[in-house]
């Protein structure tokens, strides 16, 4: 497949590589993104996993992956990728493994590890120039343990550990910028609800050697409190309201791959989810709604 093979929806792979019947929740936005990523990435991969929801994809003796898998721990999946990559390089360079047996190291992590405990190992791997793809499915909380807030939780969201009337008091950490500050070869945000944008980015990421981030917002019915059938629509709204900017970093520049125009009010996204219901009922919290809108406006002021 050439780097420019995917231009239209009909160019997306028609063969789906990830098996079904996993333990993920119905409507899992992370799994949606992973399906799309895996179709483009292919099976010559080792998915090195950090503790999170997707650890439950591979449960002895079953796996939905046609390629390989290694579960590590919550904090150190990038170091696992380092060990796999280095070992494969050593085997090839010493002539103990033919190059056609080579594999790509792919870290698969949730936001809980990516935004917190795993940051040190991630930073170390980028600084060492490790050739790996880092996929974070970001459902904005510790989803596997029942959606407690994490460093990825957005301002005002109710979680199992921020149940007050103003929700989570902190602000979502900017993991994309943290990566960009390391000057990796590639970094991108994606969402499963925009499969063409996602596939183009994975295809591009495949052409680079070095540390590469794919950060996928992962609408989460059980954590965000909405009907599983709405995952795709909520994903689209995240993009249309400008809450989830689709962008990539390459050659030292951040480029937005989609600029929503006209941008919908954030309310249209927030009102779809139970975690933000307290912003609307019993009465509207105008102050918080204005603050959230203002932050999104401020972001796009520098882009539009």
């Amino acid at each position, binding site marked *: 497949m050439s780097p420019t093979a995917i231009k239209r929806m009909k160019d997306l792979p028609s063969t789906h590589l990830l098996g079904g019947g996993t333990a993920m929740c119905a409507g899992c936005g992370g799994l949606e993104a992973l399906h799309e990523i895996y179709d483009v990435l292919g*099976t*010559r991969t*080792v998915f*090195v996993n950090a503790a999170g929801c997707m*650890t*439950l994809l*591979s*449960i*002895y003796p079953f*796996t939905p*992956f*046609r*390629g*390989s*898998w*290694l*579960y*590590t*721990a919550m*904090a*150190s*999946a*990038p*170091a*696992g*990728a*380092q*060990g*796999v990559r*280095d*070992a*494969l*390089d*050593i*085997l090839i360079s*010493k002539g*103990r*493994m033919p190059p*056609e*047996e*080579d*594999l790509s190291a792919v870290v698969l992590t949730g936001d809980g590890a990516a935004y917190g405990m795993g940051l*040190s*190992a991630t*930073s*170390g791997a980028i*600084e*060492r120039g490790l050739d790996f793809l880092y996929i974070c499915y970001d459902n904005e909380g510790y989803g596997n343990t029942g959606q407690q807030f994490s460093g990825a939780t957005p301002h005002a969201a109710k979680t199992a550990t921020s149940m007050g009337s103003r929700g989570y008091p902190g602000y979502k950490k900017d993991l994309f910028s943290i990566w960009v500050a390391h000057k990796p070869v590639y970094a991108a945000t994606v969402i499963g609800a925009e499969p063409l944008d996602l596939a183009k980015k994975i295809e591009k990421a495949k052409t680079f050697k070095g540390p590469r981030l794919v950060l996928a917002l992962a609408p989460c019915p059980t954590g965000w409190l909405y009907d599983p059938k709405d995952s795709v629509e909520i994903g689209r709204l995240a993009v249309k309201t400008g809450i989830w900017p689709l962008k990539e970093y390459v050659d030292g520049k951040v480029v937005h791959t989609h600029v929503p125009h006209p941008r919908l009010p954030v309310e249209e996204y927030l009102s779809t989810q139970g975690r933000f219901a307290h912003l609307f009922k019993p009465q509207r919290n105008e102050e918080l709604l204005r603050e959230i809108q203002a932050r999104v406006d401020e972001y796009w002021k520098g882009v539009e």
Partner: protein
Amino acid sequence: MSRVLLTGNAAAAWGVRLADVDYVPVFPITPQTEIIEMLSNWAERGECGARVVTLESEHSMLTAAGAASITGVRVFTATSSQGLLYAMEMLYNVAGWRAPLVMVNVSRGLAAPLTLESDHSDIVAARDSGFLQIFCATCQEVHDSVLLAYRVAEDARVRLPVIVNLDGFYLSFTREPVKIRDAETVRRFLPPFAAQNIEFRASKPISQAVAVLGGSQYSYFRYEMHLAAQQALAVYDEAARDFAALFGRHYPAVESYRAEDAEFVFFMTGAYATKAMDAVDRLREGGMKVGLVRPRLVRPYPAADLRRLLAGKKAVAVIDQNISMGKGGVFYTELCEALYGLPEAPLLASFIGGLGGRDIPAEEFYAIAEALREAVKQGKAPPPRLLYTATELREMRKLQAIAHVERKELGNAP
């Protein structure tokens, strides 16, 4: 080859170099750092075929080590004390991955209070991790144990990681004459790394280290590890015999020094056991039949060897360089279990000593021997004793007095 003066750290590094290791993920920590410096420099100059990569923590270091090992290469790493504890989650993990890597731990006491000096609290904390453990008493033994460790770790009947332990400062920074083994003979002793189908290859997709649902699956894999660790007893003996045949030096799982006809026995692990050997000689000169029993292999636990060596002795003093808070010496407790119900079991006495580099001088060994003689006379074991002298306590009181004066000066005295 003639003998050269090497520190324990250098002896370990030379063992790694001869073992034809492929991959060495590292992170510096005192008193281990000299090992990884030597390996880095050799790798840079192309003098050894290993790739050395510095990780950003011991936790990552051990993750990379385990991952590389189950991708199919021979791996070495090293740590000490706080580093071992920081990596602890991954010790249990990579043992479960059945990654047959070798790690050197340079023993150092654990914080708090923070210290750089030696005791065995760190390695004992890793006792139940699934790593096999070899304790060394000399620099030559460190060098040779690295080679033995790979033989045992990679044996298909075992396939578990091994820690080779040496005492910080007393071995790590002490030069002793060491015979660096001949590379050709090492190749005959240690065959090239065999992945045994535990590897990542494009043509053979595999899922490793996956989760299980339910206690019976979990128990199955954990029991397998335990049984493999127990099989390592026979595998170790075999390897030690082969080593002796090739290199002329035998390292039994349990070393015994003048213990065959002894009535009283010192029981110790690690470098301080060499102090006990000297005390044994002196006490024998004075007419007391004393010996030393020193387990080299601590996991798997060589219970049968210990029963054979200690049956019929009058009394044994277990001198632990570790302490389980609220319980006491760990090796004392384990030896009690090993000898329980033995018809000719000796009296067992527990002593804690050598914590954080504290010396155990000859006089204390004599006092311990005297305590054993007294115990036999009384017909019962004495209560556990924490070794500490009146002089030490007086020095400690002086330091406390300074601390109190300064606190009063600052106006925050209690």
